[in-house]
Protein backbone atom coordinates (compact mmCIF):
# COMPACT_ATOMS: atom_id res chain seq x y z
CA UNK A 1 0.00 0.00 0.00
CA UNK A 2 2.84 2.35 0.88
CA UNK A 3 4.35 1.55 -2.53
CA UNK A 4 1.13 2.56 -4.27
CA UNK A 5 1.01 5.83 -2.35
CA UNK A 6 4.63 6.50 -3.22
CA UNK A 7 4.02 5.73 -6.90
CA UNK A 8 1.04 8.09 -6.92
CA UNK A 9 2.90 10.93 -5.23
CA UNK A 10 6.01 10.65 -7.41
CA UNK A 11 3.85 10.20 -10.53
CA UNK A 12 1.74 13.20 -9.64
CA UNK A 13 4.80 15.42 -9.18
CA UNK A 14 6.45 14.29 -12.42
CA UNK A 15 3.24 14.59 -14.43
CA UNK A 16 2.53 18.02 -12.97
CA UNK A 17 5.94 19.24 -14.12
CA UNK A 18 5.19 17.88 -17.61
CA UNK A 19 1.69 19.37 -17.53
CA UNK A 20 2.90 22.85 -16.57
CA UNK A 21 5.70 22.84 -19.17
CA UNK A 22 3.35 21.63 -21.88
CA UNK A 23 0.71 24.24 -20.97
CA UNK A 24 3.17 27.11 -21.19
CA UNK A 25 4.60 25.76 -24.45
CA UNK A 26 1.18 25.29 -26.04
CA UNK A 27 0.09 28.77 -24.98
CA UNK A 28 3.21 30.37 -26.41
CA UNK A 29 2.70 28.50 -29.70
CA UNK A 30 -0.86 29.79 -29.85
CA UNK A 31 0.34 33.32 -29.08
CA UNK A 32 2.84 33.16 -31.93
CA UNK A 33 0.15 31.95 -34.32
CA UNK A 34 -2.22 34.74 -33.23
CA UNK A 35 0.49 37.34 -33.77
CA UNK A 36 1.04 35.98 -37.27
CA UNK A 37 -2.71 36.09 -37.87
CA UNK A 38 -2.83 39.71 -36.76
CA UNK A 39 -0.01 40.65 -39.13
CA UNK A 40 -1.79 38.99 -42.07
CA UNK A 41 -5.24 40.24 -41.06
CA UNK A 42 -7.03 43.60 -41.39
CA UNK A 43 -5.40 44.89 -38.18
CA UNK A 44 -8.65 46.61 -37.14
CA UNK A 45 -7.76 46.37 -33.44
CA UNK A 46 -4.52 46.87 -31.53
CA UNK A 47 -2.31 43.79 -31.33
CA UNK A 48 -2.59 43.49 -27.52
CA UNK A 49 -6.40 43.37 -27.62
CA UNK A 50 -6.32 40.87 -30.47
CA UNK A 51 -3.90 38.58 -28.60
CA UNK A 52 -5.87 38.85 -25.36
CA UNK A 53 -9.11 37.94 -27.10
CA UNK A 54 -7.52 35.06 -28.96
CA UNK A 55 -5.89 33.66 -25.81
CA UNK A 56 -9.17 33.93 -23.92
CA UNK A 57 -10.75 31.77 -26.62
CA UNK A 58 -7.80 29.40 -26.34
CA UNK A 59 -8.32 29.06 -22.57
CA UNK A 60 -11.81 27.76 -23.24
CA UNK A 61 -10.77 25.53 -26.13
CA UNK A 62 -10.74 21.74 -26.30
CA UNK A 63 -7.07 21.74 -27.22
CA UNK A 64 -6.12 23.17 -23.83
CA UNK A 65 -8.25 20.61 -22.03
CA UNK A 66 -6.59 17.86 -24.05
CA UNK A 67 -3.34 18.62 -22.22
CA UNK A 68 -5.02 17.05 -19.19
CA UNK A 69 -4.48 13.72 -20.96
CA UNK A 70 -0.94 14.00 -19.56
CA UNK A 71 -2.58 12.73 -16.36
CA UNK A 72 -5.06 10.37 -17.99
CA UNK A 73 -2.77 8.41 -20.34
CA UNK A 74 -0.36 7.08 -17.67
CA UNK A 75 -3.29 5.93 -15.51
CA UNK A 76 -4.76 4.04 -18.48
CA UNK A 77 -1.32 2.65 -19.34
CA UNK A 78 -0.77 1.36 -15.80
CA UNK A 79 -4.25 -0.19 -15.75
CA UNK A 80 -3.56 -1.96 -19.06
CA UNK A 81 -0.19 -3.27 -17.81
CA UNK A 82 -1.78 -4.48 -14.55
CA UNK A 83 -4.40 -6.33 -16.56
CA UNK A 84 -1.95 -7.84 -19.05
CA UNK A 85 0.53 -8.95 -16.39
CA UNK A 86 -1.91 -10.44 -13.91
CA UNK A 87 -5.14 -11.35 -15.64
CA UNK A 88 -4.53 -11.91 -19.36
Amino acid at each position, binding site marked *: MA*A*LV*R*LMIVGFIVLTVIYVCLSFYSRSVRKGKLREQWHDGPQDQPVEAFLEEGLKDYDKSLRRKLILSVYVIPVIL*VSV*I*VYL*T*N*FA
Partner: protein
Amino acid sequence: MLSILRWTFWITVWAIIASFFHYTLPQTDIVRVTDTYESRENPTSYTLFWGAPDLAADGTVLPRDVFFIQTRRAKGDVMVYRNEDTGWGWPPYFKFDTANLQAEIGDLVSTAEAPRFVAIKHYGWRNEFFSIYPNAVSVHAVAGPDAPKGIPYLNIFILTLFTALVYGVWTRWRRFRKARIDPRMEAIEDDLADATGAVTGWFRSWRKKP
Protein backbone atom coordinates in the same frame (compact mmCIF):
# COMPACT_ATOMS: atom_id res chain seq x y z
CA MET B 1 44.35 13.34 -22.80
CA LEU B 2 41.07 15.19 -22.81
CA SER B 3 39.77 13.03 -25.63
CA ILE B 4 40.61 9.85 -23.68
CA LEU B 5 38.67 11.22 -20.70
CA ARG B 6 35.79 12.15 -22.94
CA TRP B 7 35.68 8.71 -24.56
CA THR B 8 35.88 6.96 -21.19
CA PHE B 9 33.06 9.09 -19.86
CA TRP B 10 30.73 8.47 -22.78
CA ILE B 11 31.50 4.75 -23.04
CA THR B 12 30.72 4.43 -19.31
CA VAL B 13 27.47 6.36 -19.65
CA TRP B 14 26.30 4.26 -22.60
CA ALA B 15 27.34 1.02 -20.91
CA ILE B 16 25.24 1.97 -17.88
CA ILE B 17 22.26 2.86 -20.08
CA ALA B 18 22.60 -0.37 -22.08
CA SER B 19 22.83 -2.54 -18.96
CA PHE B 20 19.85 -0.71 -17.46
CA PHE B 21 17.71 -1.63 -20.47
CA HIS B 22 19.14 -5.13 -20.62
CA TYR B 23 18.16 -5.67 -16.99
CA THR B 24 14.74 -4.02 -17.11
CA LEU B 25 13.23 -4.98 -20.47
CA PRO B 26 11.49 -8.34 -20.78
CA GLN B 27 13.13 -11.30 -22.51
CA THR B 28 11.78 -14.73 -23.30
CA ASP B 29 13.50 -18.07 -22.74
CA ILE B 30 12.32 -21.45 -24.00
CA VAL B 31 12.87 -23.81 -21.08
CA ARG B 32 11.84 -27.09 -19.53
CA VAL B 33 10.77 -26.61 -15.91
CA THR B 34 12.48 -29.25 -13.78
CA ASP B 35 11.38 -28.25 -10.30
CA THR B 36 10.32 -25.40 -8.08
CA TYR B 37 11.31 -24.53 -4.53
CA GLU B 38 10.69 -21.91 -1.93
CA SER B 39 13.53 -20.52 0.07
CA ARG B 40 13.88 -18.13 2.96
CA GLU B 41 15.87 -15.16 1.75
CA ASN B 42 17.15 -12.17 3.60
CA PRO B 43 18.65 -10.04 0.86
CA THR B 44 20.55 -7.36 2.71
CA SER B 45 23.13 -6.87 -0.04
CA TYR B 46 22.27 -6.33 -3.72
CA THR B 47 18.74 -5.41 -2.65
CA LEU B 48 18.46 -3.63 -5.99
CA PHE B 49 18.14 -7.05 -7.63
CA TRP B 50 15.34 -8.29 -5.37
CA GLY B 51 11.73 -7.34 -4.87
CA ALA B 52 10.70 -4.64 -2.42
CA PRO B 53 11.77 -5.79 1.06
CA ASP B 54 9.40 -6.57 3.92
CA LEU B 55 10.15 -4.03 6.59
CA ALA B 56 9.55 -4.35 10.32
CA ALA B 57 7.96 -1.46 12.18
CA ASP B 58 11.39 -0.12 13.10
CA GLY B 59 12.59 -0.26 9.49
CA THR B 60 14.81 -3.36 9.60
CA VAL B 61 14.59 -5.78 6.65
CA LEU B 62 12.71 -8.97 7.53
CA PRO B 63 13.62 -12.31 5.98
CA ARG B 64 10.94 -13.56 3.62
CA ASP B 65 10.04 -16.61 1.55
CA VAL B 66 10.77 -16.38 -2.16
CA PHE B 67 9.59 -18.78 -4.86
CA PHE B 68 12.19 -20.15 -7.26
CA ILE B 69 11.86 -21.97 -10.57
CA GLN B 70 14.52 -24.42 -11.67
CA THR B 71 14.74 -24.98 -15.40
CA ARG B 72 16.88 -26.36 -18.16
CA ARG B 73 16.94 -24.10 -21.13
CA ALA B 74 16.37 -25.34 -24.67
CA LYS B 75 19.99 -24.45 -25.47
CA GLY B 76 21.21 -26.83 -22.80
CA ASP B 77 22.28 -24.88 -19.72
CA VAL B 78 20.31 -24.54 -16.50
CA MET B 79 18.65 -21.38 -15.31
CA VAL B 80 17.04 -20.55 -12.00
CA TYR B 81 14.41 -17.85 -11.86
CA ARG B 82 12.92 -16.18 -8.83
CA ASN B 83 9.22 -15.48 -8.75
CA GLU B 84 8.45 -12.31 -6.84
CA ASP B 85 5.91 -9.51 -6.96
CA THR B 86 7.12 -6.22 -8.32
CA GLY B 87 4.02 -4.56 -6.90
CA TRP B 88 3.78 -0.85 -7.60
CA GLY B 89 7.55 -0.41 -7.56
CA TRP B 90 10.36 -0.60 -10.09
CA PRO B 91 10.52 -2.13 -12.71
CA PRO B 92 6.98 -1.25 -13.72
CA TYR B 93 5.62 -4.71 -14.51
CA PHE B 94 2.92 -4.31 -11.83
CA LYS B 95 3.12 -8.00 -11.07
CA PHE B 96 0.90 -9.19 -8.22
CA ASP B 97 0.09 -12.74 -9.29
CA THR B 98 3.21 -14.46 -7.98
CA ALA B 99 1.30 -17.30 -6.28
CA ASN B 100 -0.81 -17.90 -9.40
CA LEU B 101 2.30 -17.95 -11.58
CA GLN B 102 3.91 -20.47 -9.22
CA ALA B 103 0.82 -22.67 -9.54
CA GLU B 104 0.93 -22.46 -13.34
CA ILE B 105 4.61 -23.35 -13.35
CA GLY B 106 4.05 -26.23 -10.95
CA ASP B 107 1.59 -27.57 -13.48
CA LEU B 108 4.20 -27.42 -16.27
CA VAL B 109 6.99 -29.39 -14.59
CA SER B 110 8.34 -32.18 -16.80
CA THR B 111 11.15 -34.71 -16.92
CA ALA B 112 13.96 -35.12 -19.44
CA GLU B 113 12.29 -38.32 -20.69
CA ALA B 114 8.94 -36.66 -21.39
CA PRO B 115 9.87 -33.02 -21.89
CA ARG B 116 7.33 -30.18 -22.13
CA PHE B 117 8.68 -26.89 -23.19
CA VAL B 118 7.47 -23.53 -21.94
CA ALA B 119 8.26 -19.91 -22.77
CA ILE B 120 9.17 -17.91 -19.67
CA LYS B 121 9.05 -14.16 -19.94
CA HIS B 122 11.39 -12.60 -17.41
CA TYR B 123 13.56 -9.63 -16.68
CA GLY B 124 16.80 -9.39 -14.76
CA TRP B 125 20.09 -11.24 -14.56
CA ARG B 126 21.41 -14.45 -13.13
CA ASN B 127 24.70 -13.96 -11.37
CA GLU B 128 26.26 -16.71 -9.31
CA PHE B 129 28.67 -14.43 -7.44
CA PHE B 130 26.00 -11.99 -6.31
CA SER B 131 23.32 -14.73 -5.96
CA ILE B 132 20.82 -12.77 -8.02
CA TYR B 133 18.13 -14.31 -10.22
CA PRO B 134 15.98 -13.08 -13.08
CA ASN B 135 12.35 -12.56 -12.09
CA ALA B 136 9.79 -14.59 -14.06
CA VAL B 137 6.80 -12.54 -15.22
CA SER B 138 4.67 -14.94 -17.21
CA VAL B 139 4.75 -18.44 -18.62
CA HIS B 140 2.97 -20.41 -21.32
CA ALA B 141 3.39 -23.83 -22.86
CA VAL B 142 4.98 -23.99 -26.33
CA ALA B 143 5.22 -26.71 -28.96
CA GLY B 144 8.88 -27.59 -28.61
CA PRO B 145 12.44 -26.43 -27.98
CA ASP B 146 12.53 -24.57 -31.31
CA ALA B 147 9.29 -22.68 -30.76
CA PRO B 148 9.49 -19.04 -31.84
CA LYS B 149 9.84 -16.50 -29.04
CA GLY B 150 7.77 -13.89 -30.83
CA ILE B 151 8.80 -10.45 -31.96
CA PRO B 152 9.61 -8.23 -28.97
CA TYR B 153 7.30 -5.38 -29.99
CA LEU B 154 7.42 -3.71 -26.59
CA ASN B 155 11.23 -3.63 -26.52
CA ILE B 156 11.35 -2.29 -30.07
CA PHE B 157 8.83 0.40 -29.17
CA ILE B 158 10.59 1.49 -25.97
CA LEU B 159 14.08 1.51 -27.50
CA THR B 160 12.85 3.44 -30.56
CA LEU B 161 11.20 6.00 -28.29
CA PHE B 162 14.37 6.30 -26.22
CA THR B 163 16.56 6.72 -29.33
CA ALA B 164 14.22 9.40 -30.67
CA LEU B 165 14.34 11.22 -27.33
CA VAL B 166 18.16 11.11 -27.17
CA TYR B 167 18.44 12.24 -30.78
CA GLY B 168 16.01 15.12 -30.19
CA VAL B 169 17.86 16.34 -27.10
CA TRP B 170 21.22 15.93 -28.81
CA THR B 171 20.29 17.97 -31.94
CA ARG B 172 18.79 20.72 -29.81
CA TRP B 173 21.87 20.85 -27.58
CA ARG B 174 24.17 20.98 -30.62
CA ARG B 175 22.13 23.77 -32.18
CA PHE B 176 22.12 25.66 -28.89
CA ARG B 177 25.87 25.28 -28.55
CA LYS B 178 26.49 26.47 -32.09
CA ALA B 179 24.25 29.52 -31.65
CA ARG B 180 25.06 30.58 -28.10
CA ILE B 181 28.12 28.96 -26.58
CA ASP B 182 30.59 28.71 -29.48
CA PRO B 183 30.49 32.45 -30.39
CA ARG B 184 30.83 33.35 -26.72
CA MET B 185 33.82 31.03 -26.30
CA GLU B 186 35.44 32.45 -29.41
CA ALA B 187 34.85 35.97 -28.14
CA ILE B 188 36.43 35.05 -24.81
CA GLU B 189 39.41 33.51 -26.59
CA ASP B 190 39.80 36.62 -28.75
CA ASP B 191 39.54 38.87 -25.70
CA LEU B 192 42.08 36.74 -23.93
CA ALA B 193 44.44 36.95 -26.88
CA ASP B 194 43.99 40.76 -27.02
CA ALA B 195 44.44 41.06 -23.28
CA THR B 196 47.55 38.90 -23.33
CA GLY B 197 48.92 41.03 -26.15
CA ALA B 198 48.11 44.17 -24.20
CA VAL B 199 49.67 42.90 -21.00
CA THR B 200 52.79 41.75 -22.82
CA GLY B 201 52.96 45.10 -24.51
CA TRP B 202 52.59 46.86 -21.21
CA PHE B 203 55.33 44.77 -19.68
CA ARG B 204 57.51 45.48 -22.68
CA SER B 205 56.93 49.20 -22.39
CA TRP B 206 57.71 48.97 -18.73
CA ARG B 207 60.93 47.10 -19.26
CA LYS B 208 62.64 49.03 -21.99
CA LYS B 209 61.97 52.63 -21.21
CA PRO B 210 62.49 54.85 -24.19
